């Protein structure tokens, strides 16, 4: 029998590439023989754009990197700037940052969880996750005035103090979260079909994960205990008690389930931060016109997708000489082509979903 390999273009317009991502698959029947990822359809040249903006003006652009975790992206940038300018952030601002940052992390993981359920065909799980994410979006809207692109952080602090009613709402959500997680576990995680679809699919060994510079839940699913919040605590993460959930097989199921476990830990952090929230100023004394000393800095924070690094080169003027964002999704995707070889089309979608990419971040 004569057989022929088939070239299939998945994307840039495809229901489950999570945006405008394209993979060119060479298929033998349903099995992937070769794969080439083609990102760049959402490339806006943010790194170039910000060269002509002043330092505070860079901030709204960071929102648009990982638009599912805007606050964490803000944080990465302001963290780097604070290191460059050696600014001491006031206590209260740090606590507020931790609270909204962890809320945003839960929101981002909820999208990942829900979208993953949708990717393997269970749309109901998707809607449930988005229903609960809505509460977080409301809270973020409350503090920052926008749902997706908050631009909430400022160099040396945050844009505004927590509004009235926020703490109660946050507390209520944290109390509610375990019930929601139980529901996801019942509907998605515990489902045998789901487990068949994801367990033992595309495992990544710990060595490979480190070698490929994977970060975030993908790295930890392979059993590598590397969470910047623990390994190199920035901000005030050394004051909170929380665990770093680890996977054992590094397969799709572990990558998925790790995010659910991380939500619980984030909730734990928020609970402690709410209890300890001090009074005080929310902004450090920062000059009106920000002119950092000439030099360069590279600082990392742990975003929901992995390590968010920001590299800023200053020439002493009001505009950055060069800003580079190390986007976790982008670096993680470097391993994708190699990983999907030999799996079925349905697995390709499952693997892509377990990577939880955001195209705004991949393409920058």
């Amino acid at each position, binding site marked *: 029998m004569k057989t022929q390999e088939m*070239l*299939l273009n998945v994307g840039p317009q495809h*229901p489950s590439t999570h945006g405008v991502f394209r993979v060119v698959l060479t298929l033998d029947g*349903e099995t992937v023989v070769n794969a080439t990822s083609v990102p760049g359809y959402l490339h806006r040249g943010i790194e170039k754009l910000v060269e002509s903006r002043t330092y505070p003006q860079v901030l709204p652009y960071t929102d648009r990197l990982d638009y599912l975790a805007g606050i964490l992206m803000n944080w990465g940038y302001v963290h780097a700037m604070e290191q460059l300018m050696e600014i001491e952030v006031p206590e209260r601002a740090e606590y507020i940052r931790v609270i909204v940052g962890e809320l945003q992390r839960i929101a981002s993981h909820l999208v990942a969880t829900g979208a993953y359920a949708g990717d393997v065909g*269970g*749309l109901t799980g998707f809607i449930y996750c988005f229903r609960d994410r809505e509460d977080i979006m409301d809270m973020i809207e409350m503090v920052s005035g926008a749902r997706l692109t908050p631009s909430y952080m400022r160099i040396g602090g945050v844009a505004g103090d927590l509004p009235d009613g926020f703490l109660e709402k946050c507390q209520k959500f944290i109390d509610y979260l375990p019930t929601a997680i139980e529901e996801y576990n019942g509907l998605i995680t515990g489902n045998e079909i789901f487990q*068949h679809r994801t367990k033992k699919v595309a495992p990544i060994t710990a060595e490979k994960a480190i070698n490929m510079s994977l970060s975030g839940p993908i790295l930890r699913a392979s059993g590598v205990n590397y969470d910047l919040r623990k390994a190199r605590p920035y901000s005030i993460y050394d004051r909170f008690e929380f665990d770093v959930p680890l996977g054992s097989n590094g397969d799709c199921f572990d990558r998925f389930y790790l995010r659910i476990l991380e939500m619980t830990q984030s909730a734990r952090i928020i609970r402690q931060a709410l209890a300890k929230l001090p009074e005080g100023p929310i902004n450090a004394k920062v000059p009106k016109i920000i002119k950092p000393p000439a030099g360069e800095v590279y600082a990392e924070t742990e975003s929901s997708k992995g390590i968010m690094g920001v590299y800023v080169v200053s020439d002493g003027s009001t505009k950055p000489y060069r800003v580079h964002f190390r986007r976790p999704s982008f670096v993680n995707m470097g391993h994708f082509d190699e990983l999907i070889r030999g799996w079925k089309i349905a697995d390709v*979608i499952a693997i892509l979903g377990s990577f939880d990419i955001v195209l705004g971040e991949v393409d920058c």
Partner: protein
Amino acid sequence: MENIFVNAAGGIRNLLESAGLPGLAVDLIVLTVIFVAILVFVLLNVLWLVYMERKVSAFIQCRIGPNRVGPMGLFQTIADTVKLISKEIIIPKNTNKKLFLLAPVMIFMPPMAVFAVTPFGKGMVALDLNIGVYYFVALASLSTVIIWTAGWTSNNKYSLLGSMRVVAQMVSYEVPLLLSIVGVVLLTGTLNLTGIITSQQSVWFIFLQPLAFLIYLIAAVAETNRTPFDLVEGESEIITGPFTEYSGMGFAFFFLAEYANVLLVSMLASILFLGGWLAPFGLTFIPSWIWLLLKVYLMIFILMWLRWTYPRIRIDQMMAFCWKVLVPLAIVNIFVTGIGKYLYESVRW
């Protein structure tokens, strides 16, 4: 109430006969009327099912669902159909135009043809075929070819993948479907659908053949290409599979035919396992056709409930599940049924 439709058909027949028409012409006209009635019944149900699916999925997902067009959004499907009719039918380049356009027209044929032999109530059957079950199985497998035609002529790689999946899936799941029905046929000794219903007078076959019912249910879900076996459409993987290139009414036909199939398999499930139009607990004051509809809608609801709960299975797992689990189980079921029947007949409790 009970005999409203039977009486209506009889009335027409009497009217025509009294008008002095020859017997053959009377038969022809009455049959045409019955078939048109069935057609209308099926189409109305299909429109309702689209609405119902949207409502059920919405309710399961904490939403409200369509509620703007008409009272409770009842006319939503009609509005959608009107929209689809008014849309342009796009035909891809370099395709076999005739086949491409023929497929959506043909897709309604198999389920419609099967409805000709299904009893809708006591005495309410258009053609009381002796080999009804056989006829159903034979015709139901026809839709494979039609969907495959659609996928092949679309000249699209996603459609091709989808249509290959159709062939693999539907051909495979025919086997357990058929084998699960064999259990029932063994018990009754007839292939006539009305005969099968009347032999459930004392006990429904779901209690005698629970395994067969389960296998039938799973195979039926697979036959209708619904989650967890919706690999053919597999929205997140291969867009909508064979229907990717269809627009406007072409797409609508496939979409509606899916619901006609759902209606069909649910009806067959009620007939084969749930006692058809027989009333449970002696509640005979409710007409038989209402009982059948109730059972059919219960089955449909279960199918929808499954669809909005489960994720999709993968192609190799699906095939393995069919050949390694369902088929052996069905064969075991046949053996057990056969032995059981033999014992029952020889012991004569």
